């Protein structure tokens, strides 16, 4: 049990969250249910018009795909960095982090330069004689995936890396001494221990993706609309009630889905700290 004095240290942060986040969010939620009088009309509108449900499903699919692509690319990257001598790791981590310091807007515009009709890729393909005319790369769902993965990938690398450094390397060595092949030692010892980082990274990226709207608006096509775009749209039209309802649906479904992920994956996850204890 924490002593009272220790809990007190949390007070400033708790007050900040309460005043700057919880209370305003509560107002938004109240707006969804009480404008004009108490009614669930805004939620009814969401569930009765196919356009909102299809945008909602699209948001879930895009977020899950982006998080999974980040996992497939980011986990091996983290593994590579951990396998390097400790003196070289800071430089590699620095290179991973550099893109995070650039604004999302700048990076998205950079992708427009790369993917455009007269962009770098199309220029190179035509110069090499591989294509006759420009390929349509911009304003496609593919462009949305590429840009979002590039923006979010560092988060996956960092999360996986930090858990991997906590894994006691002697555990893997012990497995090898007991006769496990390199692959088996990785699969049976290292992978389960690093799973926590992988799932945390996946979850964080999933959450962040659920709220994206600038990237799909700038590089996506007319069907690449996420719930975030809808909320921006409704706020712009001063429909706070409906925007609030959309925000509630986004928040609740994100929490429920993450709860499910934790519940199912909880069985397969061992914390490195547990292994040491």
């Amino acid at each position, binding site marked *: 049990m924490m002593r009272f004095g220790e809990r007190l240290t949390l007070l400033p942060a708790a007050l900040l969250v309460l005043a700057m986040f919880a209370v305003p969010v509560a107002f938004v939620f109240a707006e969804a249910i009480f404008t004009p009088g108490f009614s669930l009309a805004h939620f009814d509108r969401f569930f009765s*018009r*196919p*356009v909102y449900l*299809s*945008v909602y499903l699209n948001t879930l699919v895009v977020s899950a795909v982006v998080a999974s692509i980040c996992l497939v690319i980011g986990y091996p990257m983290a593994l590579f960095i951990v396998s390097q001598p400790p003196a070289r790791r800071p430089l590699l981590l620095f290179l991973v982090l550099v893109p995070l310091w650039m604004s999302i807007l700048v990076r998205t515009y950079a992708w*427009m*330069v790369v993917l*455009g*009709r*007269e*962009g770098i890729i199309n220029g190179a393909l035509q110069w090499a004689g591989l294509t006759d005319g420009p390929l*349509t790369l*911009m*304003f496609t769902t593919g462009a949305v995936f590429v840009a979002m993965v590039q923006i979010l990938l560092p988060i996956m690398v960092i999360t996986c890396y930090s858990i991997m450094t906590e894994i006691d390397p002697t555990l893997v060595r012990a497995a090898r001494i007991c006769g496990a092949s390199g692959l088996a030692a990785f699969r049976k010892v290292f992978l389960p221990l690093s799973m926590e980082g992988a799932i945390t990274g996946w979850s964080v990226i999933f959450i962040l993706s659920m709220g994206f709207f600038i990237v799909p*608006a*700038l590089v996506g*096509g*007319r*069907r690449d*609309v996420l719930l975030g775009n*809808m909320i921006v*749209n409704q*706020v*712009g*039209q*001063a*429909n*706070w009630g409906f925007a609030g309802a959309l925000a509630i649906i986004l928040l609740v479904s994100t929490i429920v889905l993450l709860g499910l992920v934790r519940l199912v994956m909880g069985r397969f996850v061992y914390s490195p700290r547990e292994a040491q204890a």
Partner: protein
Amino acid sequence: MKGLTRRSLLAATATLPLFAVAATAQSSELTYAGSGGGLAQVMDILFDKPFEAETGIRIRAIATTDRISAMRAMMQAGNPIWDVAELTPVEYATASIEGWLEPIDWSVADPDNLLPEEAKLEDAGVAATFSTILAQRTDMLPEGQQMASWADFWDVEAFPGPRALQDSVMENLEFALIADGVSPREVYNVLSTEEGVDRAFDKLDEIKPHVAAWWSAGAQPVQMLADGEVAFTTAWNGRITQLRQDGIPVETMWNGGALKPSYVGILKGTQHKTEAEQYIHFMIGDPERSAEFAAMVAYPGMVQGLYDHLDPEVGRELPTHPDNMASQFVVDAVFWARNMDALQERWQEWLLD
């Protein structure tokens, strides 16, 4: 920390409110909610600095987006932190219907009666005008041809090439109806019927497969034209003038363009109503200053005598120039404030379909 006694702390806090009172009493300051960027820089030179020199009232110009939500929040809190705001047509119509604007005393804001009646509304003035027009890359047009009407934009056989439109139901329905043969003056009569809306969406069905991009920010069509990403797109007129000056071969089509006033209004509950009216007079009621403004940003006001002070070369590029004015229609802010919600929903469905 020894030096800081409880008494000295008390003394310090006790004097604070005095300073605050003194500060508000002597400095007269107006907060102006504009769009920021280059426009704010021009306004600072042409309006804000000279206004302060003349009246001693300082203008605190802030860059804002999404002014509707901000105003709603201020009105709910009962405390406007802006005094004067620049408003788009739909923002103005919403604010006016909701009663968020002070009535303007035009004897203060237009003492010499130089503004035409349509620029002097009960609770707002027309600050500037801009048009959504069709912009075309002349080097991507068929030899010796140019689009001259919305029907041409729809004609993908005669004018092949990637197109872009704004991701906005407003104006696109109007353009579609004009392309379908409705006269610009009749557009809103047709649109106020169910069949008229169906007719507009049917016409948009024809062009949908040929539209590569649906832009949402005003900088996007400029960028796409400059990069050759699209050959033909709707855009805001001032940015196309700018793009041509930057050396990109683009031409503006005024025929069937959508003229939109931008309004300036005073927020309900402000402490500085008279000062705000003086500022509005300074901004929109002086032909010479308005001409200078129009020469710099291409968004002219409506004050009488403006074009007398303007280089005809520059004047020809402007939305309220008599030559350009004739073939355009004025966006009906009230129609859109009333119908935006339902039509936007249908637009979203149509886009995803």
